[in-house]
């Protein structure tokens, strides 16, 4: 994955580069919106990470400029303006994801991978298979090792999102946004409790645990070890 990073704060830029380098993600940093818009126009980029308050041009305006210039690559807005209202504002202006500073490096990596994958059209498959879990998106049925899983509609969405991002960390904020369509953080651990439930249904009678909690970061559907 190749990321264009538009960020004027050098410390943040270097920290991001360092984190992403460990994940084998290459980063091309620029420090002004103007340069970012120009570079994005040249192509050869998978995801754009952009600060919101940039010198010379507001990040929201830069997103609009990128979109009108025909750049369709996913944009993750990274900003010190992190109130729920501002997140909604960013998404409404055409950003695909919005992450507030300070952020967890894992959260950034997880979101970048999810954005990259979404752009890679894996999301629209009619049947998702991961290990011994099979999801029929059209019929909205789920099976594990041939056993039918009685999932509620939301649990189905939850599992579908985890399967679309199988092997990667998905964070609570990502789940809230994509499964429950909520762009604020509840004050209690409601997301975790939902995951615990789903795990119980997934792992009931199964020999292998498949849904893993990544402490402090989120959840991950384990990479498939075998096919039934």
């Amino acid at each position, binding site marked *: 994955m190749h990321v264009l990073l538009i960020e004027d704060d050098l410390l*943040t830029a270097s920290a991001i580069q360092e984190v992403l380098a460990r994940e084998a993600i290459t980063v091309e940093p620029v420090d002004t919106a103007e340069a970012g818009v120009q570079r994005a126009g040249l192509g050869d980029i998978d995801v754009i990470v952009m600060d919101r308050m940039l010198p010379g041009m507001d990040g929201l305006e830069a997103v609009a400029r990128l979109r009108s210039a025909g750049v369709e690559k996913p944009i993750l807005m990274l900003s010190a303006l992190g109130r729920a209202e501002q997140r909604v504002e960013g998404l409404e202006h055409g950003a695909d994801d919005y992450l507030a500073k300070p952020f967890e490096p894992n959260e950034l990596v997880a979101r970048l991978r999810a954005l990259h994958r979404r752009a890679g059209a894996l999301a629209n498959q009619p049947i998702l298979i991961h290990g011994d879990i099979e999801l029929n998106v059209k019929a909205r049925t789920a099976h594990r090792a041939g056993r039918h899983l009685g999932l509620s509609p939301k649990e189905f969405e939850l599992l579908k999102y985890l399967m679309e991002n199988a092997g990667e960390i998905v964070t609570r904020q990502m789940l809230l946004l994509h499964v429950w369509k909520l762009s604020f953080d509840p*004050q209690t651990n409601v997301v975790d409790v939902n995951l615990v439930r789903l795990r119980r249904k997934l792992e009931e009678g199964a020999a292998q645990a498949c849904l893993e909690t990544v402490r402090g970061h989120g959840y991950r559907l384990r990479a498939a070890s075998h096919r039934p």
Partner: protein
Amino acid sequence: MAIACAPRRIGPELRPFLSSIATRQALLTACLTLAAVAMFALSALAAVEASLRADLLHTIDTDIAGLADGAARGGTDELAARIGDRLAVQSEESAAPYYLLQDVVGRRLAGNIGMPPPIDAGRSEFADATIGTDRALIRATRLSHGAILMVGRSLRPTEKLIATLRLRLGLLAGCAFAAALAAGWWTSARLAGRVGAVNRIFRRFEEGDRAARVAPRGRDELAMLGEHVDRHLSQIDMLLAFQQGISDNVAHELRTPLAHLDMRLRRTIEQTADPALTADLENARGDVRSIVSLFDALLDIAHGEAGARMPRTSFDLSELAGSLAELYAPSAEEAGLDFSTRIAPDVTMTGEPMQIGRMIANLLDNALKFVPAGARLRLSVAPGPIIVVEDSGPGIAPDERELVMRRFGRGRSSAAGHGLGLALVKLVAARHGLVLRLEDAAPGARFIIAQRDS
């Protein structure tokens, strides 16, 4: 209940109409005009009637003088003959004449009055009297040789004239009333319309349309008021933009070093192998998170109070509440609460779905934190919209209800959180024209978010 009350004199549908300046002003003008015209008409009628009666009496007195003159020359016979002559020649136009001549002992000698009315002839009195079916003005007088002469004229032409006059003046008063009402209403409606336009601008501004301006035409007092309003709205808009800019900048300037601090802490954690130090540093990172979240909540409240931009989209509240119920149901069950919903389908409202969602989530979070296991918890949504979160827990003591809704206010049963939750709920409700009420659910607490007057 309103239905159980005694019937009111003014229906509720008429009240806004009657309370309008235009209607009240028009009615006042019309009533004053009517009173003025009525006073004029009544005094004119009285003057005309008095003058007509004086004329009639003058005619009678002239007639009596002529007859008395005849009596002096030719006695009662001459007088009776003259009366006979006068009765024989009656004009259609003038008032019908009435005569009676009686001798000393009261025998009728001439005339057309059957029953003499009781009028004192000795003092030459006059009075209104009924003659057959007619009404007449009669004067009685005693002649020099003791005979009594009564002379009168019918009052009918006078009364007819007065009646005609009264009808015309009545019509005139009616026309004047209608004209005054129409003119008053037209003027006042224009006035009320212009005042209403100013009010609408205020409402739009309140609802977040910060570009709303009166832009008055003309140079009268209302145009001046409009200009004043516009000037002030522009100033408020500028201050809001300034405040928003400042808070964005403050947020940026504060969050950036906090982000740096967080990064440095994380790097140090990665580089150390000391578990005690790692735990300390992780706690420090938790503190950074707390500062950021408190700061966000404060800014949210500041922005809400400043009436910052609020997109007004119509959205499905039932769907949003249903989604939140699904999110919270497992946690409620884990907490041992009997959680249920009563969500009416297809309830829509206008506003900011994220804020409304956060408001409901806040109330549910509160219930998860404070309501003990075994209690009931219910989320209801009804058209209005009315959003209710109620539980059967220990409730909130009456003296604490005000406190918990205040900023940083907490009840005695304190738990984690920055104490801004309910203050934010209240604010989000207010920005959507709704109010948060806290009631005793006996037992338990009932949080109601609804229109101000419902």
